[in-house]
């Protein structure tokens, strides 16, 4: 009986793959740590991505609801006709942003280092 069999090698390799994937997922990229919410260009709220909360922001068309969870944030509901910012889903990486232009509300994720000096919309 050999110590290492063919399947064992594949299990070990799969384990290595899992470790690498976890490393890339947890440490790779620049995961954001705060969310900046703007209405009509003015910062309404800056919230750390640490605990779950829901923020409601009023714009010209109605109320935009933004959901914040540990490590991510998204626009849950928005009165815009095309729902582009809602369809973007969860934002996790620093520099990502969801813009609800008709309602003049934006949600931006910030990390320790920002990928851009400034962005013009």
């Amino acid at each position, binding site marked *: *009986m*050999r*110590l*290492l*069999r*063919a*399947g*064992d090698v594949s*299990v*070990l390799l799969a*384990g*290595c793959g*899992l*470790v690498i994937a*976890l*490393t890339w*997922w*947890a*440490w790779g990229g620049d*995961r954001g740590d705060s969310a900046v919410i703007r209405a009509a260009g003015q910062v309404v709220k800056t919230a750390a*991505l*640490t*605990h779950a909360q829901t923020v409601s922001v009023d714009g010209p068309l109605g109320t935009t609801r933004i959901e914040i969870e*540990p*490590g991510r944030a998204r626009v849950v509901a928005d009165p815009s006709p095309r729902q582009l910012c809602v369809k973007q889903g969860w934002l996790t990486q620093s520099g990502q942003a969801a813009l609800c232009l008709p309602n003049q509300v934006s949600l931006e994720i910030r990390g320790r280092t920002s990928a851009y000096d400034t962005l013009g919309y």
Partner: protein
Amino acid sequence: MTRSVIELPVSSDDRRIARLAALAIGLTLAEAAIPSPVPGVKPGLANIVILLVLLQVGWRAAAWVSALRVLAGGILLGSLFAPGFWLSSAGALASLLVLGAARHLPSRYFGPVSLSVLAAFGHIGGQLALAGWWLLPGAALFKLSPLFAAAALIFGAVNGVIVARLLAGPAPSGGQSMSCIPPSTP
């Protein structure tokens, strides 16, 4: 004066499970004395016993030994029903479930090393799942997950090689451990 005698019949299986559980508990205690840089990263030496029981006796006996180890380890370390105890239970349960599925893998290709690595991942997976859901919900835990997974891979592989060596033939130093599992008598 009445004397009531309660007799609990003890089968040879019970004795064997008790002996093996004692061995696993001993390893758990010894391991608790080893300092660890990150809480939760441990060699999991008791899994060597669990794996030997699984391969030589069966899954039910392995589940008994594992449950007794967690319970008695909790009592002896003073962590009974503390968070660490529940984490340990969750890890042991997940690891047993994984082993229950993995032991059906063809043994020609998948030896003790596979079982040990899979069990180690099951162990850490169960612990992380409970910790993430109950103790530390949030992103902080996931930052540590690569560390836990790497430890599971390394210690799982080392423990698996130890089990394979013990099964391959009683080495002079391994003889004592082997003698704890007598050939099962029908």
